[in-house]
Structure formats: structure tokens, C-alpha cells
């Protein structure tokens, strides 16, 4: 149990550290390094402590229910193989932290760096100890995302951004494929639990879905491990800081792909599909990667391609399907991590000290950096597979395995030659790395004079190189038991006999090694002159860059196709778009009408009331008139629209909806005022000016008219069909029945709004508040069109009258205009407030309520603006609509929250009747408080919108004043 909890702690620790690291100040390099270092040490110690539990095929499991109904549990599971990776992640993580402390410049924002680095450590840790396929896929994606953030760490650098995006796109697509593949795998097995999956090898291999699952999983693994043809993201990821390259792109993250291949090796391998896909990819990557590596001029580029090649080696080993090859693969994962991480760090030191990583400029650095040079030499000898170093051991095993006949195909026959060739290439680029950088003439015009780095920066390399040496010399007593633990965890009962000796006698693998060594050195000296000056990149294959193909695909999909679709299928014009929307709505409405079987013969004029018909005759005339006049006679259209509104209002009264009628009436008033205020800012449009109607425009009108007509007829039919069909059972009965007994009110509509469905109402008033604030915000940046800034025509005429008569002052006509109505409006102010209060208070029992009362109250304020003008009102009355909105929302929210005090759900209401002297029994429901919130918000929102628009005239005075001043200045 403790072990299991330690596992969770091991996973959570780096993430907690990541959060903590992000909170430190940006110059706290030491604090960050200490924090990250301590976390890595602790994690390493936990891993070491867990060793006894995983030794000899032991497994530590911790299971927590997450989505049990989907078979997804948050299972953590550490076996020997996961343990080995945990050691790599935490151990190399620690070394990278120490190295990064000295690598990062004081100018770099280190909290971000260490935070991401720790997050990566956690993600990778989660990946290797996932006990559930879905959890594994999640951590897999997480490593891709953190890798993206780390590659793009120097985001001011274009190459870093491009590299990060490319890595994310490739590994992200792979991750998606992997998720689907793992889901298919889970479907085949019937469980996502890793233990169950690992025990169902035969079932999986014989299933019809094996091939699709395999291909999808391989897509994930091969993209992650930068295998051909997806390898090109890794060299581009070298734009990351070097500690990141050392950690993610050599030791850990790129190993995730081969980790997964090895993890699922027992259940997926051994088939022809596996061998051909994995083997072909692995061998191609092995040789091509090594070949590319020779021709890189960037130190990190060389190491990146070398990493690709070594990962290809591991992939090839895993493809073979023999247990011994799997042992070699696991062994090489460890060895490669140690020597490659140290080489990356050495490259970082060279870059740091010399100021460049270009091998054409570097030379003869041995005298400047003797210790670093020696360390790098040992590490690259390990990379080249020189005896007495760890790289040699796994490479010998690899050579031996390629000689074995496994399937008897061409691929098998080629394997030893490909392996020897790649081995020779590896020797060539390793020699090149050392010879070019450290030997030869003294360097000229380097950006900096190099000298040995601080000892602590070199320490991680020293440790890693020491491991390379010890493992290389006495493998069986050092790494032997740990390797065995990892191997047993993967292979179980299939674990073969293997020996980790340095000397196996004179045999073919040794001959291959010798050929590779000698051939590689000869090749280097043959190419030496060419390499010293050549362009960056591989000869012959320079133009065949995965990167370019990738970018071309990206451009084609995200830009060219998008542009084509926009150009050919899209329009920026609103009218065609609206036409399509209307047409779609029409078709959508037509369908159910005929599905439901509309029968026009049922039409009857039964119960026709002539008065009602007359009202609607007026309404129809108004609607058509508004449509006809809206272009040239805006005021007339507005009045006609109001007429249609009034008829709507009467319809509500007629058919027993007094609440609606009241609300419609007051809203009609404010809408009219609103649009009236807007009219002033619209351009003059005179009928005779644009009479030239083109045939196209005429056709458009006919088409629109037809569309409008069919929509209208269709709507009539639907409405009639709906109204004459029998009423089904509805929930209305429920509300009618309980409005009084449970809501404490007799006006059912109001009880629904403020009690039964109060949460909906709460949402609606929130929307109302947001809209009002948006209107307000939009108008703050309002700039009227130039032709609307001048004094309105009517005022100009009125001022002209004043000018003509000596007894009148200019402006007095404007002031006295509509004086009697103005005074009436001012007198009405208290009356309207009273009316609003009345509507509000009776709302729960009789028609009225917060909405209607709020709009009424707003009309009260509005009339004062109309009567006295903006300035007159604001000199006398301070209205703070935003506060009304805030108070309203808070009142509604707190009324709802109040229910919590009594242990009831949000917005549960309470009511009783209180006896107030002289007035009588008054309903006091908590819903009344809620309605008060609605009321305040509606007042605030309405007033805010209307006043904001009205205020624009005041601002245009200012604009006019400024322009007048300008004209004077010019004169």
C-alpha cells in the first residue's frame, strides 16, 4: 500500500514542483535550480526505494476509479521496465537541472523554463508508469504539449516557433492515431487495463482489427521516436535550449515511442505486419539517419540525426521479434540515453563557450577545453561503438541479432549489411564531431574566446561518461541486475539467456565491428575536405526534405484550400448569406408541415370576431407599410411598425395574456424611443437620388419578394395547423395547480418567472445586463459620420426664425419647442414611479411584475430626458444605471443564495402572507426580492442603453465645437 502511494507521489511531485517553479521571480536562477534539483533527487530516491518491489518481475499497482463506466481507471503501474525509465527520467532529469542552472543566461525567464521542465518530467513519469491505455495516451499527449512549449521557449526566435509547431503537429497527429489505436486495442481485449492487455497477446494478434490497431499505434510510436519518414521534426526541435535537447530529444521523450513498442512488444510483435512495417522503418531510419548525420554542419544537428539513427537501431531490434533482440533494444535504450545526453551537454558547452555550433568555424578547441574535449571523446567513442564502452556492448548484440535468420525475407538478408553500413557511418560522424571541433588549427574569429565552463556545468557530463565507462568495462556486475529487471518485466517467461560480457571471442559481429570502425575512419578522411567547406545538408538528398514536404502540405491545407473555399463558396456580402439562412429555415419549416399532413380543406372562419379581424386588418396594413417605407421614410416605417406592435399587444389582451400585453406595451414605447434616437445618425436618403434600378437589382428584388411571400404563406400554414390541432398534455397543468400552493402567488406567469423557472430568468437578466453594457461600451468609441455631425435641419430652421426676428434670441425657439408636453412629462414623473411600484408589487398575484415595472420605471426617466434634454436632467438627477444593473444582479443572486442558508438548492423560494396595518394581508415571498432584482436590472439596462444613445448628441456638440475651432485656426 505504501509503495502504491509512493507511486502517486512520484507522479504528482514534479507537477507540484512545476506550479511552484512558475511562481518564483524571474531572476531566481538559483532558487529554481535548487527547487527542481530537490524534486529530481526526491523522485530519484523514491524510484530507488521502489526497486525491491519491482525486482524479479514484481509490479507495484495503484488503482483509482476515474470513469469506471467506460472502463477507464486512473491506474498507475510500475514494473521493472517502467522502473528503468523512471531512473532515466529522474536521474538524467537531475543532471539536466544542474547543467541548465549554468547554461541558462541570467536574462532568460527561468521560471518558465524550470516549470516546463518539471512538468515534462511529470508527464514522462506518468507515461512510463501508466497502467491504463487511456491514461497512457493522455500522458503521451502531455509530453507532446510540454515538448512544444520547451522547444518554443525562446519564442522570439522564428526557428524555435517553427520547430515547436512542427514537433507538435507531427507528434500530435501521431498521438491522435495512437489514441484511436489504443482504443481499438482496448476494444479487442475488452479492457484498457495494461495487465489485462499484456496477457491477451494471442487474442490481439488473431483479431480482425489487429492490422488497423497496429498501424495506428505504430503511427503514434514512430512519429514520437522521429522514425523515417517522420524524422524531420527532431532536427528542427534543436532550436530548443540545449538542456531540453539533452533531456527530451535524446534521453527521454523520443524514447517514448520505442518505450511503447517495447511495452506492447509481447502482444503486438511476431507477426509479418509487425516485422515489415517496423523493420523497414527501423532499418531505413538507421542508415539514412546516420548518413544524414555525417553531413550536418550544426553540432546539434549532427547529434539529432545520430539520435534518429540510434532510435532506428532500437526499432530494428524490436522488429525482429526475437527475445534476445528485445534485450538488446532495452539495453541500447539505456546506453544511448547516457552517451547522447552527455554529448548534447558537451555540444551545449561548446556553443556556450565558443559562441557557435557551426563545425566549419570550430576547430582546435582541445587546448581551450581539454577536460570537456576528453569527456566528449569518450562519449562519442561510445556512440561509435568502440570496445570497452557501453555503446559497444549493445551494438555487438545488435550485429549478432541481424545475423540471425528470423523470417527469411530480403529484409533479413539485407539487415547485416545495413547494420554494418550504419555502424560505419556512426563511426564517421563520431570521428568528425571530435576531429573537427577539437583538433586541427586554432580557431579564427570565434565570437568568444572559449575556456572551461564552471565545474558544476561539467559535472553531469562527467557522471554520464563515467557510467559509459563502467558499464562498458564491467557490465554484468554494474548494470546487469537492473537490465535483467527491465527485461523480465517485458519478456516475462520468454526471457532468454544472454551474457553481458565484453569479449565473446572472434565471431562475425566482431568482424562487422572492425569493418565498421575501419571503414568509418577511412570514409571520414575521404570526405574530410568536402565536409570542411560544404553547405549544411546531405548531398543528393538536400532537396528531399521532409520539412519542405510537411510545410507544403500545411500550406496547401490551411491556406490554399481555405482560400479556395472562401473564394469560391464564401461571400463577404450579408444579403446572400441571409438569403441562404432564410431559405434553409423555409425548407426546415416545410418538411414537418407536410410530414404532419397539413390539410387545407380544414380551413374555416368559425368564431370569427369582426372587431378582431379589423384590428388585424390594421396590423397587416401597418406591417406591409413598414416594409414598403423602411428605405426612404424611416419615421413613417417606425410608426407603422409601432402600429403592428400595438396590434400584437391587443392580440395578447384578447387571448388572455395580460402580462404580455403590459410588457409589450411598455417595451413598444422604449423601442420606439430607441430607434427615434438612432434615426438622427442615419444618412439622408432621398427617393429621387437613386432611382436607377439595374436589371440585376430588379431581379434580386423579385427573388426576395418571392422568398418573403413563400415564407409568409408557409408560416401562416404552420401557425394555422398548429393552432387548430388538439392540445396535447402539457406541463401547464402542473404550474397552474401549484402556483399558489407552492409559489405563493396567483399570477401563474409571474410565479413561473420568479419561482419555478427563476434560474432561467436569472440567466435572462444576466444576458440583458451584458447586452446593455455592450451597447454602452460600443458607444464609447462611437464616431458619427461626418454628414450627421451638423445641427439637425429642424433646429436650423428654428434658429433661422430667431435670426429673422429682432425680438427673439437665437435658440429660444428650440428651447420652447413642445413646451406644454414637456411640462406635462415632468409632472408625470412621480406618477409613473408610482405606476411602476404598483405594477411591481401586484406582480406576484395580478398582471405586472419586475419586467413590466422595470421598463415602466425606465420610461419615467426617459420622459425626463425627452422633456428637459440631457443636460437639464443630469443637472438635477443622478441616475447610475450601471449600479442599478449590478444591484439587480446581486439582489437576484443573493436571493437565490439565501436558500443555501436553509440547506435548500439555489433559488428555492419561501413565502408567507404578512399582515401590515392599514394595508392588509400582503404576500411576502422571497420571490418578491428576486423580482426586485429583475426590476432593478431591467431599469438599469434600459436606461443605460437609451441614455448612452441619447448622450451622443451631447458629444456631437463637442465634435462641432472642435471642428469650428479648427476652421477658425485655419482661417
Amino acid at each position, binding site marked *: 500500500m505504501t509503495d502504491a502511494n509512493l507511486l502517486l507521489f512520484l507522479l504528482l511531485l514534479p507537477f507540484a514542483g512545476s506550479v511552484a517553479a512558475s511562481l518564483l521571480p524571474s531572476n531566481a536562477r538559483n532558487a529554481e535550480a535548487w527547487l527542481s534539483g530537490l524534486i529530481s533527487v526526491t523522485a530519484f530516491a523514491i524510484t530507488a526505494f521502489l526497486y525491491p518491489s519491482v525486482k524479479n518481475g514484481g509490479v507495484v499497482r495503484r488503482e483509482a476509479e476515474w470513469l469506471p463506466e467506460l472502463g477507464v481507471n486512473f491506474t498507475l503501474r510500475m514494473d521493472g521496465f517502467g522502473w528503468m525509465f523512471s531512473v532515466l527520467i529522474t536521474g538524467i532529469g537531475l543532471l539536466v537541472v544542474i547543467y541548465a542552472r549554468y547554461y541558462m543566461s541570467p536574462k532568460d525567464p527561468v521560471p518558465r523554463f524550470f516549470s516546463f521542465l518539471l512538468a515534462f518530467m511529470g508527464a514522462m513519469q506518468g507515461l512510463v508508469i501508466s497502467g491504463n491505455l487511456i491514461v497512457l495516451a493522455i500522458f503521451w499527449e502531455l509530453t507532446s504539449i510540454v515538448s512544444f512549449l520547451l522547444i518554443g521557449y525562446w519564442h522570439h526566435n522564428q526557428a524555435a516557433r517553427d520547430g515547436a509547431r512542427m514537433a507538435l503537429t507531427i507528434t500530435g497527429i501521431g498521438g491522435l492515431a495512437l489514441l484511436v489505436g489504443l482504443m481499438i486495442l482496448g476494444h479487442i481485449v475488452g479492457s484498457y487495463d495494461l495487465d489485462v492487455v499484456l496477457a491477451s497477446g494471442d487474442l490481439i494478434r488473431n483479431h480482425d482489427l489487429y492490422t488497423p490497431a497496429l498501424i495506428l499505434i505504430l503511427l503514434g510510436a514512430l512519429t514520437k521516436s522521429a522514425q523515417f519518414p517522420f524524422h524531420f521534426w527532431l532536427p528542427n526541435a534543436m532550436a530548443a535550449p540545449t538542456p531540453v535537447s539533452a533531456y527530451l530529444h535524446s534521453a527521454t521523450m523520443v524514447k517514448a515511442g520505442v518505450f511503447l513498442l517495447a511495452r506492447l512488444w509481447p502482444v503486438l510483435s511476431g507477426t509479418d505486419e509487425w516485422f515489415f512495417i517496423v523493420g523497414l522503418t527501423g532499418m531505413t531510419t538507421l542508415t539514412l539517419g546516420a548518413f544524414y548525420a555525417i553531413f550536418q554542419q550544426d553540432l546539434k544537428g549532427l547529434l539529432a540525426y545520430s539520435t534518429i539513427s540510434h532510435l532506428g537501431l532500437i526499432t530494428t531490434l524490436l522488429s525482429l521479434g526475437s527475445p534476445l533482440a528485445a534485450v538488446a533494444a532495452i539495453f541500447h535504450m539505456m546506453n544511448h540515453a547516457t552517451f547522447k545526453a552527455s554529448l548534447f551537454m558537451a555540444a551545449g558547452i561548446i556553443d556556450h563557450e565558443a559562441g557557435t555550433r557551426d563545425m566549419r568555424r570550430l576547430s582546435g578547441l582541445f587546448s581551450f577545453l581539454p577536460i570537456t574535449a576528453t569527456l566528449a571523446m569518450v562519449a562519442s567513442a561510445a556512440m561509435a561503438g568502440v570496445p570497452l564502452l557501453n555503446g559497444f556492448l549493445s551494438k555487438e548484440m545488435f550485429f549478432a541479432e541481424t545475423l540471425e535468420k528470423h523470417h527469411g525475407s530480403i529484409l533479413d538478408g539485407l539487415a547485416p549489411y545495413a547494420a554494418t553500413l550504419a555502424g560505419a557511418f556512426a563511426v564517421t560522424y563520431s570521428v568528425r564531431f571530435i576531429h573537427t571541433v577539437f583538433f586541427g588549427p586554432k580557431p579564427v574569429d570565434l565570437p568568444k574566446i572559449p575556456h572551461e565552463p564552471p565545474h558544476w556545468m561539467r559535472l553531469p557530463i562527467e557522471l554520464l561518461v563515467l557510467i559509459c565507462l563502467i558499464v562498458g568495462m564491467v557490465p554484468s556486475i554494474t548494470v546487469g541486475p537492473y537490465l535483467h529487471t527491465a527485461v523480465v518485466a517485458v519478456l516475462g517467461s520468454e526471457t532468454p539467456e544472454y551474457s553481458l560480457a565484453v569479449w565473446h571471442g572472434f565471431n562475425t559481429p566482431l568482424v562487422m565491428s572492425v569493418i565498421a570502425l575501419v571503414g568509418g575512419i577511412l570514409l571520414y578522411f575521404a570526405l574530410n575536405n568536402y565536409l570542411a567547406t560544404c553547405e549544411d545538408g546531405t548531398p543528393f538528398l538536400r532537396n528531399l526534405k521532409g520539412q519542405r514536404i510537411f510545410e507544403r502540405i500545411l500550406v496547401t491545407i490551411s491556406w490554399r484550400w481555405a482560400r479556395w473555399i472562401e473564394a469560391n463558396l464564401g461571400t463577404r456580402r450579408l444579403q446572400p448569406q441571409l438569403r441562404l439562412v432564410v431559405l434553409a429555415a423555409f425548407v426546415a419549416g416545410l418538411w414537418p408541415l407536410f410530414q404532419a399532413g397539413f390539410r387545407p380543406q380544414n380551413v374555416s372562419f368559425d368564431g370569427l370576431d369582426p372587431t378582431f379581424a379589423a384590428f388585424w386588418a390594421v396590423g*397587416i396594413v401597418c406591417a406591409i407599410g413598414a416594409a414598403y417605407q423602411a*428605405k426612404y421614410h424611416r419615421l413613417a416605417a417606425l410608426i407603422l411598425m409601432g402600429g403592428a406592435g400595438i396590434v400584437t399587444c391587443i392580440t395578447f389582451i384578447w387571448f388572455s395574456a395580460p402580462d404580455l400585453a403590459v410588457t409589450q406595451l411598455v417595451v413598444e414605447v422604449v423601442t420606439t424611443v430607441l430607434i427615434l434616437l438612432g434615426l438622427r445618425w442615419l444618412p439622408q436618403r432621398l427617393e429621387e437620388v437613386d432611382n436607377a434600378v439595374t436589371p440585376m437589382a430588379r431581379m434580386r428584388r423579385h427573388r426576395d419578394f418571392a422568398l418573403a411571400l413563400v415564407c409568409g404563406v408557409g408560416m401562416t400554414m404552420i401557425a394555422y395547423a398548429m393552432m387548430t390541432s388538439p392540445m396535447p398534455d402539457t406541463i401547464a397543468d402542473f404550474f397552474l395547480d401549484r402556483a399558489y400552493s407552492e409559489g405563493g402567488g396567483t399570477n401563474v406567469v409571474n410565479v413561473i418567472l420568479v419561482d419555478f423557472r427563476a434560474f432561467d430568468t436569472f440567466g435572462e437578466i444576466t444576458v440583458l445586463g451584458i447586452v446593455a453594457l455592450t451597447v454602452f461600451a460600443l458607444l464609447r468609441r462611437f464616431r458619427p459620420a461626418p454628414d450627421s455631425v451638423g445641427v439637425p435641419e429642424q433646429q436650423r430652421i428654428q434658429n433661422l426664425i430667431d435670426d429673422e426676428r429682432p425680438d427673439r434670441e437665437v435658440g429660444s425657439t428650440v428651447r420652447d419647442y413642445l413646451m406644454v408636453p414637456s411640462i406635462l412629462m415632468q409632472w408625470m414623473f412621480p406618477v409613473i414611479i408610482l405606476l411602476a411600484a404598483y405594477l411591481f408589487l401586484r406582480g406576484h398575484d395580478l398582471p405586472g411584475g419586475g419586467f413590466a415595472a422595470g421598463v415602466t420605471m425606465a420610461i419615467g426617466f426617459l420622459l425626463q430626458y425627452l422633456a428637459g434634454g440631457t443636460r437639464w436632467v443630469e443637472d438635477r438627477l443622478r441616475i447610475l444605471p450601471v449600479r442599478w444593473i449590478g444591484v439587480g444582479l446581486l439582489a437576484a443572486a443573493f436571493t437565490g443564495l439565501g436558500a443555501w442558508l436553509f440547506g435548500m438548492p439555489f433559488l428555492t423560494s419561501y413565502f408567507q402572507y404578512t399582515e401590515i396595518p392599514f394595508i392588509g394581508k400582503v404576500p411576502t415571498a422571497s420571490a418578491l426580492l428576486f423580482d426586485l432584482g429583475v426590476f432593478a436590472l431591467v431599469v438599469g439596462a434600459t436606461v443605460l442603453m437609451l441614455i448612452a444613445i441619447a448622450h451622443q448628441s451631447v458629444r456631437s456638440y463637442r465634435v462641432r465645437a472642435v471642428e469650428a475651432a479648427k476652421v477658425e485656426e485655419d482661417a
Partner: protein
Amino acid sequence: MELVLSIGIGVLVASGVWLLLRPRTYQVIIGLSLLGYAVNLFIFSMGRLKTNAAPVVQGVDVVDPANFADPIPQALVLTAIVIGFATTALFLVVLLAARGFTGTDHVDGREPER
């Protein structure tokens, strides 16, 4: 009665759709308001048409739902009316701002090419 209201709704929809497809912003705003009336009436009429049956119950008595109009469409429409006003205001402001920025009241923000 139903027929008259249906025709009324139809005419409101036709006028609204016609205006919606016009090129000037003011026409669109009037069109949207007319469509708003139509939609509100349509939703309201889903509770069927009843006269003298306002959903105001008489206190403690046992309620016979047959005697009352359906309160649910009414509650829906009531908030729709207020929200409709708010969106009209929003649209008006957007059109005014667009007119200020672009100098035209065409819905596309520029005069069509002739």
C-alpha cells in the same frame, strides 16, 4: 380567429423577411422587429387561443386547468419581449457604429459596385 391570427403572423413574417434581405441597415432592423412580433405571437399561440381565461388563479381553490390559458408560452414570450428590445438596441448601436466607421448604411459596410 385562428385563421386571422395565422394570416397576421404570415404577413408579419413576409414583411420581416423582405426587409431582412434589403441592403440598408435600417430596413434590416425594422424587419427584425417585425419578425420578432411574429415569432412571439407564434410561440404564444402554441398555448392555443382562449378568451377570458388569464392564468391568474383564485387563491386556495382547486384549479381546473381547462379554465385557464397556458401560462408557459406566456412566460417564455414575456422574457423574449424584453430580450428582443435589448437585441434591437444592440443592433441599432452596431449599425450606428458601422455607419460612423464606414460612412455608409449598407449592410456590407460599403456601397455595392454598380
